[in-house]
């Protein structure tokens, strides 16, 4: 966004890509790649921290994308992921289809769920939208915990073993971790690319001023529907990682708790930052695994961290980056102006048009 604008003055094709944001992303990806090599007990760290961070982050990223670029806070993202997980269980275990078609079909089903949700909820705004997506997610939860012929009710579908896809064998936990990392990075690239595309600019314009975009001839609701469907697709990618991480699927995947966990991950990481969700996911996975060692009330701890972040760092933990940079940087002025555009806060109500200047 603003960073690419600043650097577009430079000539040279590769220099265009060397922005602070991209350097951070590259560092994070490198850290993700070497993660299995540096941890002491890979059999614990890879599934419990690594893979869990990746699927929570991917699903939370779809929530952040909607919040940041469309201005809608969807609480149904975990449900789309769960629907995709259920799809994989149903197609591959119940119906006995081969695994690759099952995955592809399930991604389609998850996206379709997003499309249907969009049809119901797209006319509503802000807090209404949030409540309706929350309610719809609970509809699916209650259906999933009762529809014995499709979802096997509370017992869920199990086992769903990690498959050998032919070219890679996901049975190996390290291979599976890299597979998950690849999907997470792919999701990130999809969102970054979309945000910069013509479609992305249009939805951001719609977010800033639906009336103006409508007057310009854009079909506002159609754009919102498309964005929601795309976000549901990426959430479904998270669902693919999730189902092979757990090796089963049951209603707890789409329960209120799971939905809220994804929201906590998004907010703690930074609800205005696509990549920040992985920090949120990491913090959450660490809390889940290690807080139990010294307290039974780790959900209380999670809640306190959540409220603390909301009260003091509304941009999430990634918001700390620019703060630290400002403290240490000599070019305080430039980084401060950059920080303000890099760290949007939780969406404010309509009326305060932000001045990102995306629509020319």
């Amino acid at each position, binding site marked *: 966004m603003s960073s690419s604008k600043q650097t577009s003055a430079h000539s040279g094709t590769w220099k265009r890509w060397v922005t602070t944001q991209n350097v951070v992303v590259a560092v994070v990806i490198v850290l993700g790649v070497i993660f299995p090599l540096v941890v002491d007990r890979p059999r614990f760290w890879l599934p419990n921290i690594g893979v869990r961070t990746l699927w929570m982050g991917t699903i939370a990223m779809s929530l952040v994308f909607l919040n940041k670029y469309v201005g809608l806070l969807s609480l149904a993202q975990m449900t789309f992921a769960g629907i995709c997980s259920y799809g994989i269980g149903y197609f591959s275990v119940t119906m006995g289809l081969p695994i690759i078609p099952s995955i592809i079909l399930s991604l389609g089903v998850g996206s379709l769920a997003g499309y249907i949700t969009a049809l119901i909820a797209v006319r509503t*705004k802000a807090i209404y939208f*949030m409540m309706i997506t929350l309610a719809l997610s609970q509809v699916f939860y209650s*259906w999933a915990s009762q529809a014995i012929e499709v979802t096997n009710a509370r017992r869920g579908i199990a086992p769903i073993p990690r498959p050998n896809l032919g070219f890679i064998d996901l049975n190996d936990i390290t291979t599976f971790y890299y597979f998950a990392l690849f999907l997470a990075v792919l999701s990130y690239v999809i969102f970054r690319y979309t945000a910069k595309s013509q479609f992305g600019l249009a939805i951001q314009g719609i977010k800033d001023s639906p009336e103006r975009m409508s007057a310009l001839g854009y079909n506002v609701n159609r754009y919102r529907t498309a964005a929601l469907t795309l976000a549901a697709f990426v959430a479904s990618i998270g669902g693919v990682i999730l189902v092979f991480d757990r090796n089963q699927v049951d209603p707890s995947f789409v329960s209120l708790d799971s939905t809220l966990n994804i929201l906590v991950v998004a907010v703690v990481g930074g609800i205005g930052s696509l990549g920040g969700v992985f920090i949120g996911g990491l913090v959450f996975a660490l809390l889940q695994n290690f807080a139990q060692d010294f307290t039974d009330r780790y*959900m209380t701890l999670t*809640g306190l961290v*959540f409220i603390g972040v909301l009260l003091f760092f509304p941009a999430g933990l990634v918001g700390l980056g620019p703060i630290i940079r400002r403290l240490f940087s000599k070019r305080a002025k430039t980084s401060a102006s950059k920080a303000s555009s890099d760290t949007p806060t939780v969406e404010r109500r309509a009326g305060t048009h932000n001045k990102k200047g995306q629509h020319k």
Partner: protein
Amino acid sequence: MDIWPLILLNGLTLGAVYFVASSGLTLIFGLMRVITLAHGTSFLFGGYLGYVAASVTGNWIVGLVAGLVAAGLLGLFTHQVLIRRFQDDDMRVALITLGVAVIGTDLMLAVFGGTATQVPFPQEFQVALQIPGIGDYPLIRLIILAIAVVLGLAIYLVIARTRFGSIVRAGVDDAPMTSATGVNVRVVFAVIFAVGSALAGLAGVISGTLFPLLPGQDGSYLLFSLVVVIVGGMGSIPGAAIGSVLVGVVSQFALVVAPTYAFVLTFALMVIVLAVRPQGIMGRPA
């Protein structure tokens, strides 16, 4: 045997509980344009404290008052300490109250455990009343139905007829302008938030009298309140009444017609209303 009148009456009494809970939510939303996702927490907190108070004193009325006051204080605390500064930022308020809900769920599980508890009520209410066309019907359910009706009328009259009510209505329409006329809107907000939470707490006690109190009910009652408020129209007390009766009756009929999918049918009601009237039955267009 004709069971439909019985189901209708069951739906009405269930709707009474939903109404008491959701009237608080719709009051808070109507005035402050924020949604508190800790509403279910107030509900369960009030229910548990009402249970403790009623068990200790042996007096059901004391239990009702205790639940009401406890949840009201919790609401006041939440409002004053956590969300007062961010009142204009509805998303942030929703998220902060969500954090409160997460903590509340966990702490109540720690204190009150996972077993079901039921609020004790007086012997003289534990009788069946002969109703023509239905047969025996528990008196306590009718008492609770009456409480909800009286409460609904009282809230409606306070808002429609008193000075405080007119301030509230003015605040709903235009808070800055109301503030400019010399009304201390902050105090009004705090009072409404406390009253809304207190109503949820009261709902918790009366629900705990009819049905067992369980962990997880904070989430389900938050959802039912949200559905009622969405169906009825946000910010409207008559809307909350209509919404609660609809949700209560539909869910009871659905239990008989299609027990497996009762919950889904209840939500389908919401989807239908939204498709036809996005602002809810009594809601004003945004």
